[in-house]
């Protein structure tokens, strides 16, 4: 991500310190993770200490301080999906891609996140792949979904 692009985002929020979270969200939205240079630039332009920027970036779960894989997997672990076998979905992802929630595989193909509730409870257990829902996932179906990701 270029500094110009980062500056554009900061300018959009008038470099207000109060907009720190919004700015980081916007950067992450475009870049999919938050590189160190981006945090430094935000700190400098907003006049917010780098330690505070890092604190916010490290605390809120949506922010990623490491690069993400090409495909984002979100497995719902909300109560309903939990009762319907979300753990089996997570286990299958581990078997196929070798990653646990919060991790990215060594080939940078998949990043896995466990989320709380996607609001599609009747389809549980649910996994989202790059924004596309896959529901009623038995282990074999989970495997098929992952193998079909190109």
């Amino acid at each position: 991500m270029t500094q110009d692009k980062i500056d554009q985002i900061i300018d959009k929020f008038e470099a207000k310190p109060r907009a720190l979270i919004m700015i980081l969200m916007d950067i992450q939205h475009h870049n999919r993770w938050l590189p160190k240079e981006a945090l430094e630039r935000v700190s400098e332009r907003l006049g917010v200490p780098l330690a505070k920027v890092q604190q916010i970036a490290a605390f809120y779960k949506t922010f990623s301080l490491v690069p993400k894989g090409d495909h984002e997997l979100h497995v719902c672990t909300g109560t309903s999906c939990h009762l319907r076998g979300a753990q089996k979905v997570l286990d299958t992802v581990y078997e196929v891609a070798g990653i646990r929630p919060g991790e990215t595989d060594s080939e940078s193909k998949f990043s896995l996140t466990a989320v709380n509730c996607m609001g599609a409870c009747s389809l549980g257990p649910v996994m989202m792949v790059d924004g596309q829902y896959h529901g009623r996932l038995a282990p074999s179906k989970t495997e098929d979904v992952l193998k079909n990701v190109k």
Partner: protein
Amino acid sequence: MQRIGSPEKLEEIRKAILEARDPKASSIAICAAPNCHALGNGAVVDAFEKEVKAQGLEGKVRVMATGCLGFCEMGPVVIVNPSNICYVQVGADDAAEIVSQVANGEKPIERLLYADPDTGERVEALDKIPFYREQSRILIGDNARIDPTSLEDYLAIGGYAALSKALFAMTPEAILDEVKESNLRGRGGGGFPAGRKWETTRNAPGEEKYVIVNGHEGEPGAFMDRALFTGNPHLVLEGLIIGARAIGATKGFIYTRHDSPMLLANLNRALEQAREAGLLGNDILGSGFDFDVEVHFDVGIFVSGESSALMRSLEGNMPEPRPKYVRTSVSGVNDMPSNLNNVETWANVPYIINNGVEWFAGMGTEKSNGSKLISLSGSARNIGVVEVEMGTSLKTVVETIGGGVANGKKLKAVHFGGPMGGSIPGDMIDTPLDFDELGKLGAPMGAGALLVIDDETCMVSLTRYFVEFLTKESCGKCTPCREGMRQMLNILNDICSGEGRPGDIERLEEIADTMSVASLCSLGKTAPDPLRSALRYFKAEYEAHINEKKCPAGDCAIEAN
């Protein structure tokens, strides 16, 4: 839309919209909420639109991709108005047939109607289907009547009439009195009277005052606020503006989920439309009242739904709660008086202003009035978004609306209030939906996530799940919550894996008491509540795990050890 500069102009525009529409024209509402979307309804919507064009019915039959229609289990759901026919599990292939049926007033298509699972009998009318029959879909029912992207649609069903009345026919004091008298209680969990909260903020000193919509909905298994907000964003906005007028706030915040693209799109569009039409911004409807709104997002942590933590997040800080001896209604965002209510609470406000106190108080029980949205999930046969009158028995919700327990299993318990709620045994479901009654039983309503639990679910394991969830979602600021929960989880992990020791139950109880007394915010204070209710009603299961190394529900993998 052009700027609406007076209440008369608003009514003029409304009249023009209605006159331009044929009251007999049919509309086909296709649910476009996440659940039906996941079932591939994008293709269904496209197919219907194509079909209407192909059959030359533009202007006669209207296709709308709407907000959640509630019956998620049977999605994609299609509702035809005004004939009130409900089609379930509709595919793109069915579009031609349905469009032709609607246009020509033919007999409903038998195979797409809801079939009673026991008798196989088909049900034609929406309000005859058991899932819908027992509901009072006051807030969520309009989802089937409007396109959430259209301000005109909202005006056509009487939208912003309450705002107009509040600005021109009522003083701010009168609005406040009305909400106080209605006894509208907060729908987000606490059940605190909204009017009293408004009054505190109104009377608190401060240069600026704020009103906030809490649309965080971080509770797993809760998806009703998203359904309402996405399907009818103007309703919540109208409630918020009326509240701002009563309180004397000039600025509002909407705090909502970052991971619901459709909600975000509909909300942003609604705000733009409202600004353009003069319903938001300076000199609203020519009344001289100025008010605008800023949208913020949760960035993925549960504790930021707690009111004081949410306000820190709005300021761009860590979502760490403050002690409650200073209330946020007196000192909240930027240390200014800030009134926060959840999505559903705000959505009730226009109805109360339009229909009056008696109408609202006429629904429900003595101390819990109006209707309540519920997300029905877990092992129920029908999962979905439900709205019932307060006071409805849980039995009606679980058995009639929910269709009982799926897959022939038996009802073991119902759990209300998510990870900070509680479970009551299945034989207690005659209890009415009432803030106080449910609170007394140890299963507080919370935001309205109702989980149906079958007899193959282990209550120890369920408690363990909730505690594990909260361990990850605590902000970590105060020790009782951060460390208490960790130790609680260690003990529960041991019990579930057959390593439980005598005295564990007492240790859990002691940690629970310490957390409730000493934690800073309600997350830590009520985190032990699922444990408490489980020990109250299902202690034998804990004892079986510890003493006999057995999981009565066959859920925990104890035998393997």
